[in-house]
């Protein structure tokens, strides 16, 4: 009964507010994480949930996991059901961009409303510490000498890890389609293959292998971020003369038909969220790198990124 009264009151309140003082309204977010519990998008969604409630910008927030097909199942469901509701949010990232292309998904990110790019994790290129390869140039030389014998380990086929391995192979002057990339279900299994010395090199999110890099079990050759990052010893590929950059970014999207007014309110809410202390603490705790970009710039970035991802996937034979 109590809950019923509250929700009726809440609804009345919301009506009263939308009549005038729109900026004071709190959100009641329903965040779709298009992946199962435990993954990066699930983590991002639950982080948004936590910080939005903690900073008082949302009265409540719940996370719904809709796993499947690199996020395209969640995307399709979101695009079909969210309508113009400003409380509906979707988390996504570069993997989703790739999955839309390689799965020939009928629903694309054009059909939802980009709100903000939030985090961007650098990928790291590593070799086992026992390897004779010392620098990224050594690795390029090895790939040049024997492209099939240079075995890469990383996450699933067509994902960001695979793309980076292909781009580096291309930078070595070889056909990117020839990269001998062994896909694992995640950074964890690939890590075991690295430590067991079964592969030449590995690619994963920096955070996933940070412990092994710091303990000296893995040697980090380069990161894929465009600029050096504080606290990470490995230098960007670009700074080492390899013209490749790739960031595993995560972003948040709003419903397809949100009004311009709601879009502005959401943008303001995320702008406030990323500058809160709670968010900054959380980024440090999770080992994520801030990669914030507001809605309009992000839309333009998304368009460019989609084209470059398509190019890599075509070169790999994973897209037409």
């Amino acid at each position: 009964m109590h809950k019923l009264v509250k929700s009726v009151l809440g609804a009345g309140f919301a009506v009263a507010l939308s009549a005038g003082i729109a900026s004071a309204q709190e959100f009641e977010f329903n965040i779709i994480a298009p992946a199962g519990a435990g993954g990066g998008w699930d983590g991002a969604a639950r982080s948004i949930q936590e910080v939005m409630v903690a900073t008082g910008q949302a009265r409540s927030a719940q996370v719904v996991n809709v796993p499947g097909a690199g996020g395209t199942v969640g995307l399709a469901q979101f695009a079909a059901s969210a309508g113009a509701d400003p409380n509906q949010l979707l988390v996504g990232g570069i993997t989703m961009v790739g999955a839309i292309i390689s799965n020939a998904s009928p629903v694309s990110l054009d059909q939802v409303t980009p709100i903000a790019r939030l985090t961007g994790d650098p990928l790291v290129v590593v070799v086992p510490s026992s390897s004779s390869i010392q620098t990224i140039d050594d690795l390029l030389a090895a790939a040049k000498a024997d492209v099939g014998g240079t075995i890469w380990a990383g996450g699933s086929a067509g994902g960001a890890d695979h793309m980076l391995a292909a781009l580096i192979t291309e930078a070595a002057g070889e056909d990117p389609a020839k990269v001998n990339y062994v896909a694992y279900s995640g950074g964890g299994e690939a890590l075991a293959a690295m430590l067991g010395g079964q592969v030449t090199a590995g690619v994963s999110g920096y955070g996933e292998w940070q412990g092994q890099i710091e303990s000296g079990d893995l040697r980090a050759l380069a990161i894929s971020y465009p600029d050096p990052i504080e606290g990470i010893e490995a230098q960007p590929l670009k700074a080492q003369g390899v013209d490749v950059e790739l960031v595993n970014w995560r972003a948040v999207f709003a419903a397809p038909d949100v009004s311009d007014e709601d879009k502005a309110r959401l943008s303001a809410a995320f702008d406030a969220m990323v500058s809160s202390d709670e968010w900054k603490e959380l980024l440090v705790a999770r080992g994520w790198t801030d990669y914030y970009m507001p809605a309009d710039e992000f839309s333009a970035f998304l368009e460019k990124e989609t084209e470059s991802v398509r190019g890599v996937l075509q070169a790999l034979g994973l897209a037409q």
Partner: protein
Amino acid sequence: MDVLLNLFAGFASALTVSNLIFAAVGVFIGTAVGVLPGIGPALTVALLLPVTFKLDPGGSLIMFAGIYYGGMYGGSTTAILLNTPGEAASVVTALEGNKMARAGRGGPALATAAIGSFVAALVATFGLAFLSPIVVQIAVRFGPWDYFGLMLIAFVTVSATFGSSPLRGLTSLAFGLWLGLVGIDQLTGQARLTFGVPQLLDGIEVTTLAVGLFAIGEALHVAGRHLRNPEKPIPVKGSPWMTKEDWRRSFFPWLRGTLIGFPIGGLPAGGAEVPTFLSYNLERRLSKHQDEFGKGAIEGVAGPEAANNASAAGTLVPLLTLGLPTSATAAVMLAGFQQYNIQPGPLLFVQHADLVWALIASLFIANVMLLVLNLPLVGLWVRLLAIPLPWLYGGIMLFAAMGTVAANPSVVELLMLVGFGTLGFLMRKFDYPIAPAIVGLILGPMADSQLRRALQMSQGDPMILLQHPSSAVMIGLATLALVAPLIFKGLSKMQSDED
């Protein structure tokens, strides 16, 4: 001795009143949710993560430990009593356990599962404390060729679950293997048998298959003959507790199950299911009561349940020492660590020794609490069968549906559940065994991708499988296991011909 000192320090910090309460809450929730078909521990831990934001790291991890172990305990209850395993790791338990329950021996079956889980978790947690550095060294050397060898061994042992007809058993296995093809191939990104349905791209969820074939299929099967041939409530014959004989027959299976479960759980791609298959087959071969297998042999419950729980502790080895989550639950726990800016990995034991040892100590505590909680519950669970069948099966269906919907809120998933339920009914009606289908779905994709990884690393040379001694031995063992029974049969036939 350092280890012992550390462990005592861990107990000292874990044995506070508040931590004990957290452990008790975790154990209770874990068991309660584990009992429900279809909701696994991973989802529970993910849901509880926000609740623990306000707890200190020690308290929240201790609660997770309780949930993790509790979920593993709970899974066997419905498998034994209702023939509806809620997760893949307790499918094997249902084979003998449910036969025991139908013979009125549900009490001893639940008891051997609970005590076996306790023994296994106890031994395996000691293994975690003392052997982690060694286990992890072996685990990372385990290459794709070795995994393939292990899969082969598991495959040849499946025949233990075939029942009366090899043809029908193999057909069920083939069905599972075929289902395993569905989805995007992990190695190449190629979609197989998805027919343009996006929900199929991630493949068939093992839980959906298990709950569909077992829970829904069983409900249809029982309903189909209930009115004409009402199933009598199972009388609990004799004592609900284990007899001296039960103890004697359970003891070694518990230990052997533990020895199989712990190392395989520690492998980065080992999982909890494979050790249960291996343990079941081993007990079947070693038992002096082979005629009872398929009719309710207690060894067939004791071994796999111990293996299942030992592998749960084994999973923590790569998580704590490498930061490598090998199960969905472990992945969520990893996120839990990160909440507090703790990065599991090679430095965890050095940087956060107090926390790690408190966690290991609380695993021991959770384990004792589980036994204390579960043994009295045996009597209560057995009485669950006193619920009139219409309501009992109504409830089973409701929880099965909820588990599926909660894990993946899609109509396609529900339709798959219904489809598998129908198939489970037909398979029962025409006497095709159910378990091999689930085994096929689990092992098929693993064998496929590990073999192809091996061939990719050797650039197509199949000899790589025999060049590594460890995989060569395992492939040899698998071949032997396949061929030896045929030779023995031939020999004994020749002998009887001579007679």
